[in-house]
């Protein structure tokens, strides 16, 4: 890899750094020393076991959903519906965890995860079918499905599934056998992150080394050529989208089974939207998504600490999260390793597209 290629690979890193610098401006305007604010974020996210565990907790749903969105990206699809798929996955896991009793954990946990994957997949199936069948942009349909899912969970958590006498809309606790074990004692860090990491490795192998992954990429990059080569393009796209939704659904399940142990109204604070940025900054590469998800997880957990110690509204941290994608890389590293970008000050002879069709 020559220097230019390396610069291209590092573009997302630059983007994040620029964004963090820009984020200082309003923090400073609010009368807080920006350096102190970032120090608090860093301290809160990584300094001790507890902070690190919180970071892992926040990373988990981002990683699941980010991987899901990355799978869709590889097929040339933009899944903005991870938020809704997270909700449906959490809902399905909660239903299994609440209604089934007496199973050993080794059966109950996979069963709940399976249900969550199925629910997330079904939630993504509708936009996928509308896309291949009627040509409706998946961007808008996945967005709209989010709202339906959020209100559906809100209704169930505050209605039929609500714990009698609860002060807020939440369900009874899940059956103990359906809860994910804690992996760092005395913290919230749960086994969901291990499953997510395993899936990231699995997807890396699929897309890097198997024909299935190649077919998905081909169907996304050049449907006509793919069809000519015998790939069933429509079926492949639908399958990729369903897999995408299933992964996001697992994210919701791990949140419910590992962290909350109940179905709460509005249990995801926008993980599905952050995951879009996670996936794009990771350029749709599963292993890179692990890194970006961890970064955003740390930002989220650190921002909570900063908010407590400096008296900031936590939402302002969503400004930090929002900004990296505004400065997201103008050009992506090309397949052949060369890169094109704004960094060299001249217009490059050839601009490369990201590895998926834009829009």
């Amino acid at each position: 890899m020559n220097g230019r290629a390396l610069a291209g690979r590092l573009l997302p890193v630059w983007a994040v750094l620029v964004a963090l610098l820009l984020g200082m401006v309003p923090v400073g305007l609010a009368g807080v020393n920006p350096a102190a604010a970032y120090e608090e974020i860093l301290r809160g996210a990584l300094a001790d076991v507890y902070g690190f565990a919180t970071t892992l907790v926040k990373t988990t749903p981002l990683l699941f959903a980010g991987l899901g969105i990355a799978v869709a990206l590889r097929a040339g699809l933009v899944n903005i519906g991870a938020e809704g798929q997270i909700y449906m996955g959490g809902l399905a896991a909660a239903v299994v965890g609440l209604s089934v009793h007496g199973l050993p954990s080794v059966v109950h946990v996979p069963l709940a995860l399976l249900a969550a994957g199925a629910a997330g997949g079904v939630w993504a199936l509708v936009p996928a079918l509308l896309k291949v069948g009627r040509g409706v942009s998946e961007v808008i349909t996945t967005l709209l499905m989010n709202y339906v899912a959020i209100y559906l969970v809100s209704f169930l958590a505050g209605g039929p599934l609500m714990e009698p006498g609860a002060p807020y809309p939440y369900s009874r606790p899940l059956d103990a056998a359906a809860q994910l074990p804690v992996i760092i004692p005395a913290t919230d860090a749960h086994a969901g992150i291990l499953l997510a990491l395993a899936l990231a490795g699995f997807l890396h192998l699929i897309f890097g080394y198997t024909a299935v992954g190649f077919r998905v990429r081909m169907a996304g990059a050049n449907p006509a050529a793919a069809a000519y080569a015998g790939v069933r393009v429509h079926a492949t796209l639908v399958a990729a989208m369903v897999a995408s939704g299933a992964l996001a659904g697992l994210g919701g399940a791990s949140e419910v089974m590992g962290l909350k142990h109940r179905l709460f109204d509005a249990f995801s604070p926008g993980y599905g939207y952050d995951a879009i940025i996670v996936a794009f900054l990771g350029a749709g590469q599963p292993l890179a998504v692990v890194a970006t998800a961890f970064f955003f997880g740390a930002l989220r957990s650190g921002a909570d600490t900063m908010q407590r110690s400096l008296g900031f509204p936590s939402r302002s941290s969503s400004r930090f999260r929002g900004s990296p994608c505004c400065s997201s890389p103008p050009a992506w590293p090309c397949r052949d390793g060369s890169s094109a970008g704004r960094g060299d000050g001249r217009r490059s002879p050839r601009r490369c597209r990201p590895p998926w069709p834009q829009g």
Partner: protein
Amino acid sequence: MRLSTPIALAAMGGVFSERSGVFNIGLEGMMLFGALAAVMGSHYLGGPWMGLLGAMLVGGAIGLLLAYVSVGLGANQIVSGVGINLLALGMTTFVARMVLRPAGVEQVPAFQIVAVPYLARVPLLGPVVFTQTPLVFITLLLAPALALFLFTTPWGLAVRATGELPRAADTAGIHVSLVRYFGVIASGVLAGMGGAFLSLGQLNLFSENMTAGRGFIALAAVIFGKWHPLGALGASFLFGAAEALQLFIQTYNLGIPYQLPTMLPYVLALVVLGGFVGRSVAPAAAGVHYGREDR
């Protein structure tokens, strides 16, 4: 009518941006910025009209930001739009809590309902259409004006050409990037107006995340309205009616949990997109970055 107007304004913005070839998913965020700017303008600069002006300026500025990132730098349009939305949610909440709340700003001067002389007395139509805040009338006039602009003027032709086949437009001497900047900024101004209508036309205050997905409904209205300003207006009426119906159900407490009727506009949008639109054809180059040296 009242519920349709913000959707209609944002949808017309979406029409402009997509006709010029930029898929603007940031409408939601632009509306939110507009809603906040309108309240601040109305409070600090004196009156709802200044608020509207502020909303248009801020909306346009956000449009400029989105245009710079997606057109100028060539970043993915959908990601940059999502970024705008996240930025809007964080920033408006931040400003509202750090500026408005400490200053004790809650209710601000809003638009009053005006009855158009004579027309307001037309039976049925009068009270519904002609007894509204001025913004409603502006919206109703804006739709045909924008349609005329897009479909009869050379500038409109330039916008449409840029959205359909930018290379041909470029060859014909049209500055593609400039037109796209214009399209996205115009959509920001319109979405900002939509936000201003939410905070000053329907209410007289700003609340966190008050757009609540209307920008996304507007995107559906763009598609359902077949990328035509009048079509977008019509589609917005449909979604406005759905919202009115769900409010009605909530108000009269028919024993239905509120979440179910709240879903109605979104479900309707999905059904409409899936079932009735048929294959409506988007501007061919919408969502695709154009660089002169690309091949």
